[in-house]
């Protein structure tokens, strides 16, 4: 990590290894004559070729193979792949099985958001290098974070068969559905989790946020009846409103030299943002009443354009996830059978769900025997790369006169606003501010 300054007009910010992100990446910002000249979020993890591994495999294997793309959000991959295969074979999964999918996904949101809010993002605001240093002074905050994450893990473990890389979800549903009694144990934990998330929101509201609102195009799923997680149409605040199979008509992916992860952008309008802020701004009215009320109480209205406040938005989503999970458990009736038989037929299928970091889009072609001919996956972090660079550009432009250390700190924080999962997007992060 280094910040170099030659005179007052030019500088370079370099972070060679970005901490507290999933995967490996670096940051480089060059300023000449008080103007930002170059910003690069460098991602240099080797590409992982999952789409090639999938070709020639059976359609039922896709959920288990793609789950390996990420240790934090395996459910996102399993669900996206399962939905796409069901779509290709003309099957729709509804009722109790869909409820279980919704429930396990709430567990994944809780687990992933708790890790980010407490362990990765909070230290930025409180001025600590990491969670270990923060724990010396704020043990209760850290303990609460670990416990919330654990509640999420427990949901994943019960429904998924184990916490990491769950083995119970399958194309068509689940190998085994939990009993009523098994879920009752979770309800108590989730009720605690909801209270803990509410307290956490109060805490996040006391943090200092830089004055930095941006004009974004947000993209998220929208469902007619719920805050979309599992399915819906792809919508934006600038007029996008399409079914999953038309998404590629509106976006493109391109290779840029400084990233092993493809950059995505809207064909008509350029960079767009996915993730908690996008969902929140597009679908606020569909959050549970308690979540909306809690947001209002801390002064977070239905619109939030400051990416540094994403820590609050994630916390609202934790409240929502607990609330929804409790409701799903409350009206649970064990589905029998626990999955719908899916018979392969030649075709193309699409699946897209709201991973904790944003939409994760899948498309597969299979033949009559269910063999995968082609696969394409667009994970959330690759879609956010351009908007992360744009944020840095505007932030450095606006706050160029901050002391070097502070500026660099906030640039790194600016990346962590997105909870980037570089491992998923290809798989890394190192900041360079160049004022030479």
């Amino acid at each position: 990590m280094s910040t170099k300054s030659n005179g007052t007009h030019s500088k370079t910010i370099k972070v060679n290894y970005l901490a507290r992100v999933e995967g490996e990446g670096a940051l480089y910002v060059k300023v000449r004559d008080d103007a930002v000249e170059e910003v690069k979020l460098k991602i240099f993890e080797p590409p992982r070729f999952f789409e090639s591994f999938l070709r020639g495999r059976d359609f039922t294997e896709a959920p288990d193979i793609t789950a390996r793309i990420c240790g934090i959000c395996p459910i996102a991959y399993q669900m996206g792949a399962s939905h796409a295969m069901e779509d290709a074979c003309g099957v729709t999964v509804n009722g109790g099985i869909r409820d279980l999918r919704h429930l396990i996904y709430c567990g994944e949101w809780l687990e992933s958001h708790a890790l980010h809010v407490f362990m990765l993002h909070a230290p930025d605001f409180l001025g600590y290098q990491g969670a270990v240093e923060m724990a010396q002074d704020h043990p209760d905050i850290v303990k609460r974070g670990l416990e919330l994450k654990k509640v999420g893990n427990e949901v994943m473990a019960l429904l998924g068969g184990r916490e990491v890389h769950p083995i119970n979800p399958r194309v068509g549903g689940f190998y085994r559905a939990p009993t009523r009694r098994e879920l009752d144990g979770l309800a108590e934990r989730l009720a605690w989790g909801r209270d803990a998330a509410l307290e956490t929101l109060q805490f996040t509201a006391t943090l200092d946020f830089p004055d930095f609102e941006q004009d974004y195009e947000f993209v998220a799923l929208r469902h007619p009846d719920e805050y979309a997680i599992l399915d819906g149409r792809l919508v934006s605040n600038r007029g996008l409103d399409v079914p999953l199979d038309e998404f590629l008509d509106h976006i493109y992916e391109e290779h840029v030299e400084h990233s092993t992860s493809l950059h995505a952008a809207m064909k008509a309008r350029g960079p767009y943002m996915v993730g908690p802020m996008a969902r929140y701004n597009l679908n606020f009215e569909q959050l549970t009443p308690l979540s909306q009320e809690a947001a209002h109480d801390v002064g977070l209205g239905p619109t939030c354009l400051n990416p540094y406040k994403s820590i609050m938005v994630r916390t609202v989503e934790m409240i929502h996830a607990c609330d929804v999970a409790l409701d799903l458990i409350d009206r649970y009736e064990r589905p029998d059978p626990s999955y719908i038989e899916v018979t392969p037929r030649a075709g193309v299928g699409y699946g897209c769900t709201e991973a904790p970091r944003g939409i994760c889009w899948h498309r597969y072609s299979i033949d009559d025997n269910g063999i995968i001919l082609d696969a394409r996956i667009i994970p959330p972090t690759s879609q956010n790369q351009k908007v992360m660079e744009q944020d840095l550009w505007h932030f450095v432009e606006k706050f160029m006169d901050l002391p070097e250390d502070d500026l660099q700190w906030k640039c790194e924080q600016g990346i962590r606003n997105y909870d980037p999962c570089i491992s998923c997007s290809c798989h890394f992060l190192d900041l360079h501010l160049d004022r030479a």
Partner: protein
Amino acid sequence: MIVIGVGNELRGDDGVGLAVLRTLRDRDLPAGGDAVTLREATGEGATLMETWQGADVAILIDAVRADGDPGTVYRFDAREQTLPSQFFNYSTHAFSVAEAVELARALGQLPPHLLVYGIEGSDYDTGAGLSAPVEGSVETVADQILDDLHRYHQPPTR
């Protein structure tokens, strides 16, 4: 007592922790019900802290990068010393083995006994299988851990 093997078998030498665990399964572990639990882990920190919760003795095995010769074995008594975090930083996890141990220390949640074995790896490329020098250390580490377990083991009193 719990022995936790950390790693990813699909990333070459990163799988050494799991290989040691498998070797231990065939060994003469201290008897007596659930005297010893063997557990696999990916190395995600918060989950690790949960895994060793309640154990009197926890032993962790993981691959490390410490600029030593491949196959070199490092043994840390984590109650006595801070883990050198650069040893364990190859992981893509934002919060991994060394952070988990230090966070538990800060929160007063370390098990009464915590040993960490690190084995110097050389090849972390995608694909299964350990490199020869790392493979050569698996039995040695398993033997050492077996000694540790027998030393800590207290037969149930009748």
